[in-house]
């Protein structure tokens, strides 16, 4: 009796000793791609002119922001120690919208929202306004803009932010981080390497990445979500952003086993090649550093290993490999074309 008693004592104690309280932090990365939003506005205006139906498929930034605020407020409402951080992300830059970095003051409106909620909403709204006016004035000079948004900046900043909070948390307090990306534009594969490295960091930090896509399906985000075990949802109805966000993305990690959540999508594990930043289905892989290329070259641009192309007859001889300095990319008869997804998984296992 006493012995069994003792073992239960010990286990219960260590369980409770580590964590005294848990605080949750949700980082929302908001895609503010100017050309996408303005395209939406224009096409929305045209369509609204033709058919006066308000429920068009087009998004307007102000309306979408309002819906996102509903989500943020709901998240803050659930628990007093829930915190949000909002990052905005342009074609090449990212900004902290909340907590605001610069002066984000605007007209203070008192309404039925609690002060803490209102502060978040106003700071985000004002920062978005400031950033967009600044960018739009710049935009006139070079009208060259793309629908692509680069997320790495915002992603790595959010991971750093969570990491800092975790490190600074008093002993016994656990900080749970989660990242939600609300994407509008198209994927940018130009920084694929950095992107996927950031995702692996998130995976290591045990941070789930969720993605809510307003525009086209995003291959990169699907990969990110799949690797970190998050949720991926594509919103079809512009008027229903808040409902989707509130239904799916309020659930925290341990609630997701209790609720029916959107199924995992079949993830397209195409990697971007290192030479032209294209997403390739079948590519050439350096056997030393696992870099992916769309066309075979004489040497690896990443690790500088010289590829020795062996002729078919040499294959029989099985020449000894000099330890890693020269590596065979492929016998030319059998090109080392591998599904890049496999590489990805290998890399995943290595990291």
């Amino acid at each position, binding site marked *: 009796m*006493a012995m069994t*008693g*003792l073992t239960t*004592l*010990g286990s219960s*104690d*260590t369980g*409770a*000793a*580590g964590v*005294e*309280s*848990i*605080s949750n932090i949700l980082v929302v990365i908001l895609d503010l791609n100017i050309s996408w939003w303005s395209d939406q506005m224009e096409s929305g205006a045209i369509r609204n002119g033709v058919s006066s139906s308000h429920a068009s498929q087009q998004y307007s930034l102000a309306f979408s922001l309002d819906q996102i605020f*509903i989500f943020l*407020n*709901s998240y803050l*409402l*659930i*628990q*007093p*120690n829930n915190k949000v951080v909002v990052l905005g992300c342009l074609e090449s830059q990212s900004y902290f919208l909340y907590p605001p970095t610069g002066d984000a003051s605007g007209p203070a409106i*008192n*309404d*039925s*929202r*609690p*002060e*803490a*909620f*209102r502060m978040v*909403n106003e700071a985000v709204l004002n920062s978005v306004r400031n950033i967009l006016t600044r960018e739009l004035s710049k935009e006139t000079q070079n009208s060259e803009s793309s629908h692509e948004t680069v997320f790495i900046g915002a992603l790595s900043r959010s991971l750093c932010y969570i990491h800092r909070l975790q490190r600074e948390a*008093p*002993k*016994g*307090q656990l900080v749970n981080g989660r990242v939600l990306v609300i994407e509008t534009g198209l994927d940018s594969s130009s920084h694929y390497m950095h992107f996927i490295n950031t995702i692996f960091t998130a995976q290591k930090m045990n941070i789930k990445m969720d993605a809510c896509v307003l525009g086209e399906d995003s291959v990169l985000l699907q990969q990110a979500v799949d690797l970190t075990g998050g949720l991926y949802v594509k919103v079809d109805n512009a008027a229903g952003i*808040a*409902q989707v966000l*509130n*239904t799916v993305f*309020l*659930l*925290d990690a341990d*609630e997701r*086993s*209790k*609720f*029916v959540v959107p199924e995992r999508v079949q993830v397209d594990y195409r990697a971007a090649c290192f030479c032209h930043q294209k997403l390739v289905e079948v590519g050439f892989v350096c056997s030393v550093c696992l870099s992916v290329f769309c066309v075979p070259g004489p040497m690896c641009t990443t690790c500088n290993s010289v590829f020795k192309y062996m002729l078919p007859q040499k294959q029989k001889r099985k020449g000894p490999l000099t330890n890693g300095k020269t590596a065979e990319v492929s016998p030319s008869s059998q090109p080392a074309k591998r599904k890049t997804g496999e590489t990805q998984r290998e890399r995943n296992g290595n990291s």
Partner: protein
Amino acid sequence: MTMVASDGYQSIDHKNLYSYLTTLPSSMLENLYKHPNPCLCMAIFRDLVPMAQKFVLRQLFIDQVLPKSALLAWITPDGRKDHDDAVRLLIELRIWSEAPSSAGLMGWKLNEHFRKGIQAVVVGGGPSWGGDVTPTAEETTPVDVAFLEKYARDQWEHVLHYLAGLKTRQTASHVVDVLATAGLVRGGNERDGGITQNGFRFLLMDTPSQVWRFVLSYLQTTQKWNMDLIECISFIFQLSFSQTGKHYSSSGFSDNQMKMLQHFRDYGLVYMRSGKRPSSRFYPTNLVMNLSGGASSTNASFAEGYIVVETNYRIIAYTDSPLKIAVVSYFSEMLYRFPNLAIGILTRESIRNALAKGITADEIIRFLRMHAHPQMRESSPILPSTLTDQIKLWEMERARFEFTDGVLYNQINSVKDYELLRNYANDLGVNVLSNNDKRLLVVTTEGHVPVRAFWKRQKKE
């Protein structure tokens, strides 16, 4: 996460808002939701279990009855138990009522007033309820947050001082009333009732839990003073959602609200400058803000740590506060007293004394961990496990007997009858004790009625 601390406090009534609200008549609840100030809906919402919160949020913008089958489709088998709990809770609080949906299926209807309240909080647009913040320019000498925290702590300790029987200052009569309502001191005509069992346990809790329970019994006490309960509740939660370090104006407050403000000043929930003419400005402190998260938000940000516990059961309290020393001496034997520290020792006797007062081992351990000295917190586990295990063992040795009410069946004549009866009791799961040699059987009191009925039927046959 539901607070571990909430377990076993049944005797200190109403560990959270929910258990308090369910004692109210249903018309009262309806009136609470109707209150123009949505902070009440918000406070109740925060007190819901996570799954119930998600149900409400999903239904918030859907103006239809939610069919029960649709609700079940949201849930995986793992979540079934939580689902049942959440549904029960929502019904008890009258947030959900049963209604037929448009397709004729039975479903759940969200209380319209509650929906409006939560919508107002999340979406905004309604009238402001945070109180008017007067511009800072008016303030001649601003009050900083550190000062407010110290003020709140001092005032609250004063309340605890009274409870612990250490009289330092005159204690206001309403404090005594509230403590008596909570059953923390013996009430009655004689004011010096002394601390009760629950009072001891109350002293060992962390400050947010203490304030939370205190405020709930304050609400009960206001009814004795013939104050409007709804007005009181909404006022408290309005305060709890304010911002620390900011000041609010009390102009336009009703008499009741002014009265409460004066009371709260005594508890350290708000700070008001004392001057010749009454100031209309007040500063809510962190004590009242902790209320906004319900009882579960007792974020155990360790109170300032002062206790060092050694593996040799020696306990060193680096404090000169008589209150803290008094609390530590509830479960330890005090040995020495120095200007800045007191040393005691945990013995079987001292722990048993504490246990006899109704304090549980978990409460003692929690208290020690919560007030552990910063240097203690570096180690993991914070408290030496020999010590925590020993305290638990000392508690277990008091609980070697388990008492179960039951009914004895004996003098059963035949073995066959006995076995028949015993098997029936086993099947029902009401068999407490059976002795085959003496042919006697003890069943629980609930089991007595069916077993007797069975026996009578059996005898007829």
